Structure formats: C-alpha cells, structure tokens
C-alpha cells in the first residue's frame, strides 16, 4: 500500500481549515513543526506503520478524525 500518509495529512489540513486558505497554510506549518511535512509525502510514498501511528496521534490532538 502507498499514499496513506499523504492522504491523512491532507485530510487534517482540510478538516482543520474548512477550506480557508490562511488556516490551511497555518495548519501545514503546525504539522511541519510537529515533524510531519506534507510536502515530503506523495501518493506513491510507502505506508509506514510508525508514521501512520504518529499522524493518527497528531490528528487526535488536533481534534480531527482521519
């Protein structure tokens, strides 16, 4: 499987921002500061269980269901 991390990170940004571009940008910055840079993952990035676990934890902390 591939692309799960990218999909989850994009969902966090979208849900947290409701599509507002300013909040999208800020949320992306917050993710990068947490060590999860959405630009470093693509639809072809291999699914890594540890990273997926971390993304789930971050989503929960941000109050977003992914």
């Amino acid at each position, binding site marked *: 499987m591939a692309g799960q991390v990218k999909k989850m990170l994009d969902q966090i940004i979208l849900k*947290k*921002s409701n599509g507002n571009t*300013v*909040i999208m*940008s*800020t949320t*992306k*910055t*917050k993710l*990068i*500061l*947490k*060590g999860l*840079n959405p630009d*470093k993952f693509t639809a072809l990035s291999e699914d890594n269980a540890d990273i997926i676990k971390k993304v789930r934890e971050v989503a929960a*902390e*941000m*109050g977003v269901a992914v």
Partner: protein
Amino acid sequence: MNIKVAYSTKEKVEDIAEEIGKSLEGFDAKTVIFFASSKFDADAISFAMQKTFGDIPAFGCTTSGEIVSGHMLNQSVVAMAMNSRIIEDMDIQILQNIHEDPKGAVAGAFKAFEQKFGEPMADMDFQKYVGIILIDGLQGAEEQLMEKIGDLTNVTFIGGSAGDDLKFLKTHVFAQGKAHSNAALLVLIKAATTFDFIKTQSFAVSDKTLVATSVDPAKREVLEFNHQPAVEAYAQAVGVSVENVADVFMSNPVGLMMGDEPYVRSPQRTEGQGIVFYCNLLEGMELAVLRSEDIVRDTKIALGKKQEELGAISGIINFHCILRTLELKNKNQLDDYGKIFSSVPTVGFSTYGEEYVGHINQTATMLVFK
C-alpha cells in the same frame, strides 16, 4: 489616537509607575501592556504598575532590553495603553507550573476563555480574536505550550519569552499586580479593529541543507546531522573549521522551511559533538543553512509593506530576539533600528525566544493593530 505609549528610565519603581501613569493620564485605556528590565524588583514593579492603573488590567514581563517608539532601551520600563477602539473585550489567564505540565496549563486557560467569551476556542474566528503569549523564558516550555495552543484553536497567539538582561537566572511574567515565575500569560483579545502580524528574520536561505538524524528534543540538542556528528556536519555546511563553529552560530542559524519562509532554529552551544539549540528539532527535520542579512533594511521593508497593506497602523507590539539586539549592537545599529518605529506607537522587548504558530529564534514577531 487609540494607542498610546510611554516609558521611564527612572531608578525607583514608584517613580517609574508615576511617570508612566502621568504620561498616559486622561487616556481611556482598556488595558496596559508593559515590559520591564529585570533589574527592578519584579513583584514591586508589577504591583506598582497595577496600582497606577487601578481596575485596568496591566500585564507584561521582564526583558533583556526594551523597545519603545524611536528607541531601543536598557534598564527601563516601557508601556502601551490601548482603548476600546482597539480592544472590544479581553481576558488574561496565568498559567502556573508550565515546566511540569505545559499542556494541562493551556487546557485550563482555554476552558476559562471559553466561559468568558461563550464559544469554543476551536470555533473562534481567527480574524476577530488574537492571543498574546508571554512566557518565563528559562523553563524550556515554549514548544509544548505553542503546540497545545495550535492543536486547540485557529486563533493566532503571538508573543515572546521573558528575559533577564542576559543573566539567565530568573524571568517573570506580570499580571494582577504580581510577578510569576515558572509561568506564562495567555491573553485572549476580541479585537475592535483589524490586526495583522509581521514575522521577519533577516536571513538569506542558502542551498545547503542539514537533516537532523539523531536528536534529544527534551534537551533541544541535535546529536547528528546527515548521519554525521552534528558539529562536523554543520561546520562542513557553513564552511568553517570544527573549532570555529561557535563563532558563526549567530550569523548562520538553520531554518525549518515553510515554502520560502524560514522558521529559525538558533544554535546555542556545542555539547561534545552535538549542538544545543534555543528551540527543539525533531528527528527527520530538514533544515536550510541561513546567512544573516541587514536587520534594519529588512525590518524597514517589512514594516513598509504592512503599512501599505493596512493603510495605517495604530500600534505595534514587537517581540524581538535578543540575538538580533546583540547583532544590532555589534553593528552599531541599535539607534537605526529604534528609529524605524519612530512614527508608530510601538512597545516591545528583547526576548529569549519568539512565538508565532510555534516557538522560533532570531526573529521579530510583531502584533500590528490597524
């Protein structure tokens, strides 16, 4: 005039409070923010300032240098009063024991804000509300506080870490007439006017990158960059010998890149083969090596651009890194920097760290009111 500033360079706390009080007399303030040198007794200055302004909330913190319109000061107190055309409503929460439980402290403060303003922090309009954060600068709690804030709300919190004139012994935040250590202030403002931010760091981004491959985030230490001892990899990237890395720390920090925008992480000291930073780095983070540029020129441009965007500026609160202040001092540019803000009511201080979305270094983060 909806924002008015004052300052005092007197020696006695009572005289300072009196002078600032007189300067702001007749101004219908909704709140007063003040920054005071650590040379003053912290409890005494907080008490005196609150007593001077009576029921008007007066809050602030200790510094490593103060900023007021036109001047970069030392061993003074600077203050800014804002009226109801700037602030519709506000609440100040004191977060205690931030070293032990930073995230719990934020959650508690946010509950209080929700009760006061009657809406969840998660739903608050980020264009209507803005937060100020002032933190004891010696607890190493900034990252966790900012992360928790960012998790719970889209409201921007901007601010700085309190200083103590480079003694690195004890810093304080001021609220309710008292001084608090191991504490932070969160101030949530429902603005009556438009507000915006300036974040400027005056660095050029080089094409050299370092990836943190072994870290100790709790100590803010990087053990390895690019799978090499951190000191060695950094020295290679900057182009200096291992023995001389500390000499270029100030002019060559590293930046976590958000597009073209660096979030600066400043090296503090070497620790064996590792490098301790002023804020933490996580494993896997890719960083650009930065090169210092002209702070005065860069700040003039940033302020001019903001003035153009907003049309007019009523006031600025400037959270200005002490490392930038030291660089300005080394280059004999302190006066030039102060003069940039001559025509705008401005207060600020030289910080032990700046806050904007996260915890950053060697940056000026400014809250700008239209």
